[in-house]
């Protein structure tokens, strides 16, 4: 359906009502701030950022970090799906390769040799968290990231794991191992 536009009056063609309305709105806010002392931050948080820490709401998408499982092992298995999905290509995973270091928990065959996130590139979209099949990466609450150089803002695996903390999710590989051990049909080899 085509909605035909309302023809503009002469005053409207010179933008006069728009100017008047604009002045009304801006004046209202100006008056409220200057004469009544009301500000957006003051109304909602009761103060301003450095003194009154900003309250991070649940669901906020801060910096993505890697998490460990309850036993302190790396959850990431280097599937590189997050690297694939990352729109600004901020994630870079170095796979372990055939003779790389084995995973630090039993039964999972691999973990990344290195896992880098370039926080300068990251746009905090959360697609890595969404795509991760292992629940190994989460957007956490850090909203204030800064560094002295570009290199410093590329977080490596150790740093991401240290910042990420522990996640209390299912331990898929551990359960599989226990299941396999219970069967005894084949000798269970743990890499």
């Amino acid at each position: 359906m085509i909605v035909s536009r309302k023809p503009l009056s002469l005053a409207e063609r010179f933008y006069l009502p728009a100017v008047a309305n604009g002045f009304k709105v801006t004046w209202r806010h100006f008056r409220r701030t200057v004469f009544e002392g009301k500000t957006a931050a003051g109304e909602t948080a009761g103060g301003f950022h450095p003194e009154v820490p900003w309250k991070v709401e649940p669901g906020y998408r801060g910096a993505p970090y890697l998490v460990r499982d309850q036993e302190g092992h790396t959850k990431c298995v280097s599937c590189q799906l997050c690297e694939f999905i990352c729109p600004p290509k901020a994630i870079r995973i170095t796979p372990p390769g055939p003779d790389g270091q084995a995973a630090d928990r039993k039964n999972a065959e691999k973990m990344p040799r290195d896992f880098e996130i370039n926080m300068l590139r990251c746009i905090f979209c959360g697609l890595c968290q969404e795509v991760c099949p292992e629940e190994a990466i989460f957007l956490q609450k850090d909203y204030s990231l800064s560094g002295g150089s570009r290199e410093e803002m590329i977080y490596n695996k150790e740093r991401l794991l240290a910042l990420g903390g522990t996640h209390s999710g299912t331990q898929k590989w551990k359960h599989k191992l226990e299941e396999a051990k219970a069967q005894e049909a084949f000798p269970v080899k743990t890499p």
Partner: protein
Amino acid sequence: MSTPTPFLPPQTAPSAETIRVKVDGRDIDVPKMMPDWQGKLQPTTMLQACQLAGVEVPHYCYHSKLPVAGNCRMCLVEFGTPMMGPDRKPVLNEDGTPKIARSVLPYEPGTPRGAIACATPISPGMELYPSSAATRQMREAVLESLLINHPLDCPICDQAGECKLQEYSVQHGQATTRFVETKVHKPKVVDLGPRIVLDDERCVLCTRCIRFTRDLVGDDKLGIVNRGSYNTIAAFPGTRFENNYTLNTVDLCPVGALTSKDFRFQMRVWFLKETPSICATCATGCNVTVGSREEVIHRLTPRENDAVNGHWMCDHGRLNYRWVGRSDRLAEVQVRLSSGDLQRSSWTVALDRVAQHLRKATAGSVAIIASARLTTEELFLLRQIGVRVGAIMDSVPRRGEGDAYLVHADKNPNMNGARATGVVGAEPGSQLPRIIEGIRTGAIRTVLAFGEDLVKAGCPAESLGRLEMLVAGDILPNATTARAHVVLPGCAHLEKRGTFINAKGRVQRFRKAVEAPGDARPEWEYLLDLHRALGGPSGPDNIEGLFHWMAREVPVLAGLEWSRLGDTGVTVTI
């Protein structure tokens, strides 16, 4: 290779006689007989008919170049045959068309009964329903039972991204499992042989690997042990799976059970850029697909070409790619100063120096060693330069062991190209002793060595030092580049475009998969510059133009066009 091996069955034409069948309601005439994996004519199967009709039938165990086993049941298709009356005449519908009896379970006439399309021959008037609801339901059921014991570990499985089980699960599978019992856990990370790792949990027991190594390679090492749910692929006790063709089973494996130790956990397949190319390890010239990411080559896989390598390639050629990314690659143009040191220079300076020297050189005092690892175009250009400066030319032959399948005894990928362009005579290497003698006595004062180490070819190292000018165009440093006056860094064939002519005279082109390091340029580019600097015609600037120029000049290649070579090449008579 004169005798056909199981690898390259004779390319039999399908029979001229056709049968009319219906696929998804469309009439199609298919040949009555089609060649099987050995090239023998066999009755056409339902799967072949569907393929000819352009309808995909999912399958795991069937492979066009392997004996039919019919054990995965994934290709089940509902079908119907014309109904026969008691008088042995077809029963007709009211409109005169033959009445079709859908196949049903004999004891349960309401339930459709499928047939495995890979092993069921068609008959005249047959109707196939590869897209019907019943067919779909059969596939779902088969897939569900295949997945009963399959671990859902796609994130760590190297096959993810090119896994048939994954693909068909997406198309035909269910979102959740109904299987509530404990899965059977089978051995993981089984070391089958020097290049293969097996994960039995992921195996769907299609037996493609067993059939390949037993029936094609003739190295019967794999089998199935245990019963029922515990069926497991294994190497026979006390043996290892280690012939030269084992890695083909990794390609054959429709799931991630067999993985290559070389490529294992190296890179996810969806990141790989695939470039059609050619293996340059021997004169067979197997067609390959190069998988690379960000200028790093991660694997080679065979590319189908029934005239050269079928679906297969040897393990040795497949793993022969790491040298391309070596850190000691020649990446700088270098020119030797009067002080005797090699110094980094530019292409213009270096080529100028070579051209100036060649212009002054007298005929007969120049020798060109052109490796048969260069492309045909480069050999052609070297030949042009050689004729212009009156050089003695030859190439270095490389003989090794061949086998009855794909490995050729000639280890140069392009000796036939050298023959065609006239760089070598009928007997490659016949001029070499003369050249070496010339270098030793001082009759030859200028040597251009492209892609070959003269010291390895038999020339004493100290006599090279007496040369007025030694130009070495190579990829990796060697004794010759260490003594050269001008070092020109070149490209591996995976870093440039060009053609090879294989042992059977097939002209095959390859494309550029990765960038060359540093200053390295494709040889044909700088040889064109050098040829121009020596007074040659301005000529073409691109590989297509160069190829067409060569095709005009070289009688063997007469009439060929770059674009007509396609990805599988054209055979010429050398």
